[in-house]
């Protein structure tokens, strides 16, 4: 079985290599790795899925990696894939798992028995800011209006989001209210099981505002469906230059939902370095730029030790906040 697999992989690799002779755009000298296997802790079509497949597409099209394969392993909100990678560490040196901010949040709440320290940190690659949006016909035009509406009638000013209470969207909403000097737990947070349903609820007037990812909001804002009243970035984002940041409006909040790649524990150092180098080189390629622009991602590159520092800082900030808010 194993020999067959190897044989087939070698065959594909050689077929790709043969093709690359014919196509001068794929220069042979660039190739860093023969193959990468991406482990996706959720189903097809989600954010993790898009990140892994987009990264794989850019890496292979740019000729940095020979072939990319993908495996969706849903279960336990991502916990199953983490467990799998740890249990089968020795046979998974060729595997990269995609993950994002929830690995930090869910380890803190104890939903996951593991945390990011149990894995090999390869690289944080992209990020997405959070945004608070309102419907296009809403009388609310900025954060000050939203806060005034909240002060006038807290129970009628519900904020919705696409995550569970205590999850990322709730955390962002609570963080913003906290920074604005309100009682973060007093905000009525209404959870929806998908971003689309939350958006429908916003447009139907069921909720006053929606806490969501910036890239999700930006398409609907361009279509004139919603108004973005606050972004959690430090400076305005080029994709929506009219959208004000939280900081501009006197609310000292910044937040970015990162996405990145992890390896199995005990992955050999030379292998880790190869992955990191391939990802670092990827940023300069037009193929990556195309994938990035298509998805509205922001490049936030943290490799190796930087990634560790970044994650530890985020764990501390989020952990403190969750304790303060009473989520922990």
């Amino acid at each position, binding site marked *: 079985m194993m020999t067959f697999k190897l044989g087939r992989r070698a065959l594909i690799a050689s077929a790709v290599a043969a093709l690359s002779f014919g196509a001068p755009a794929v220069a042979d000298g660039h190739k860093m790795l023969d193959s990468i296997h991406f482990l996706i802790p959720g*189903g*097809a*079509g989600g954010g993790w899925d*898009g990140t892994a497949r987009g990264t794989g597409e850019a890496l292979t099209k740019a000729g940095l990696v020979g072939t990319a394969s993908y*495996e*969706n*392993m*849903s*279960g*336990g*909100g991502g*916990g*199953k894939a983490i*467990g799998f990678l740890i249990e089968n560490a020795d046979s998974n040196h060729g595997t990269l798992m995609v993950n994002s901010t929830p690995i930090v949040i869910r380890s803190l*709440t104890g*939903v996951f028995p593991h945390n990011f320290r149990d894995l090999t940190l390869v690289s944080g690659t992209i990020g997405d800011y959070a945004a608070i949006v309102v419907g296009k016909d809403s009388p609310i035009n900025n954060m000050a209006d939203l806060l005034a509406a909240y002060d006038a009638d807290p*129970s009628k000013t*519900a904020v919705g989001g696409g995550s*569970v*209470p*205590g*999850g990322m969207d709730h955390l962002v909403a609570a963080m913003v209210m906290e920074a604005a000097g309100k009682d973060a737990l007093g905000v*009525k947070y*209404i*959870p*929806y*099981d*998908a971003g*689309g*349903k939350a*958006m*429908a*609820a916003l*447009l*139907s*007037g*069921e*909720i006053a505002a929606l806490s969501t990812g910036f890239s999700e909001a930006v*398409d*609907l804002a*361009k*279509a*004139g*469906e919603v108004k973005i009243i606050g972004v959690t970035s430090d400076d305005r984002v080029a994709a929506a230059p009219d959208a004000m940041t939280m900081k501009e409006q006197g609310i000292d909040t910044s937040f970015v939902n990162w996405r990145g790649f992890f390896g199995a524990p005990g992955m050999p150092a030379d292998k880790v370095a190869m992955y990191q180098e391939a990802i670092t080189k990827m940023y300069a390629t037009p193929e990556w730029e195309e994938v990035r622009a*298509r*998805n509205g991602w922001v490049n936030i590159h943290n490799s190796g030790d930087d990634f560790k520092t970044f994650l530890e800082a985020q764990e501390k900030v989020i952990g403190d906040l969750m304790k303060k808010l009473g989520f922990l």
Partner: protein
Amino acid sequence: MLEGILLGLQTAFSVQMLLMVIGGCLIGTFIGMLPGLGPMSIIAIMIPVAISMGDPAAAIILLAGVYYGAIFGGSTSSILLNAPGVAGTVATSFDGYPMAKQGKAGKALTIAAIASFCGGTIGAILLMVFAPALSSVALLFHSAEYFALMVVGLSAIAAFAGTGQVAKAMIMTILGLMLATVGEGALFNLPRFTMGLMDLQSGLGFVTLAMAMFALPEALFLVLNPITSQSGSSSEIKDMRITRAEARAIAPVIGRQSIQGFFIGVLPGAGATIASFLGYAVERNIATKEEQELFGKGSVKGLAAPETANNAACTGSFVPLLTLGIPGSGTTAILLGALIALNVTPGPRLMIDEPQIFWAVIISMYIGNFVLLILNLPLIPYIAKILAVPRNYLIPFILFFTLMGAYIGQNNATELLLLVGFGICATALRFADYPLAPLLIGFILGGMLEDNFSRSMQLYDGVAFIWERPMTLGLLIIAAVLVLLPSFRARRARLRAQGVADGD
């Protein structure tokens, strides 16, 4: 608008687009026929192909063709093998499978094909005429109304509460609702009833449970009981003609359900599944006493209603997708992702900015429906022959696809253990003569019922939404009537019979 339609016709009738529609429908139908493979997995597989074509109109026409092809094909496995691969065709198996067992497989497939065609075509006409105006209808429903709508959907179980079965049907429904609470709900931060198992944290999968309730016990029954299952089924496949009386019976059903199904499909939180259950419940309740007896035992009306409704609803679900950019179901969410990847942003500006895409999609729906009808009608006698396959070949085939379907959606081997475990329980329950359909209805509706209920409770700080929102109240009253009317009628009939007896 006329200009737009002409532009759409021009785009949709090019050779390339026609090939896309035909290709999409063919792929969708054939994969959809395999038990356990729903439109979501098929579309996810086709997305890379569609995106690499680069032309957004061609891509969405191909994907839409795959989508309704899969729904159409899904009804085939529901009817022939009692193995619904999509939640939307569960209701089709309620009457379709009994018909196939009675040797009317050909007729059942014909009715399904015609009902789907009519539902899809009438839906497409409604979409063309009303799409721009309907975007506001899509936003009419709040969580409170969705909760009430799910309650109306649950009233479909009344159809299985035949004489002496009321208690059993209720028990199974409650069991289904309980199974829906397993895992980490969308609204709670804690896992429930997972017994500490990580594999249960995402809850039980629909395909797993559907296969365990329907397909697996069926296959086991074929093994355990080879003599009775062989009689009758395969011999009379030729009989695929619909009699004039049957045509007259299903025509009004198709008419009503096309419209009802379409409007339910327009609501972003409802979709084809709810439409098919509601269609089944409504048609059963307005049928005459004698016809009601037939529901669940092979009624042509009971087959036509959900088949029409789910196809009309699929068409309807394009309204929020194209006019608001809001996906109403998992499948349309994947379609939305594909569109965005092709630099098309669905929303109110789509019709103005890129009318050729908007109208080409709608026109391609007509073509798609014709293709499906032409493709399916002549093939029915051959498809129905599946039942004539000797049991010792058919059973492994069913088992293989049942297991594969459960595995492929999640890529999770635990699903297989769950499938077998639940399948054995379901077989035991069938021996004890418990109806299994109410369990599945409870499971499918349970999650949405609970989510919408708890959201409404939060928004209104209590149950005030029941009387503060007139539409919610209205829907709940309809649900009560649908549940109580049959037993009230039965009681009156019984009293009258007793009265006559006393008088003698």
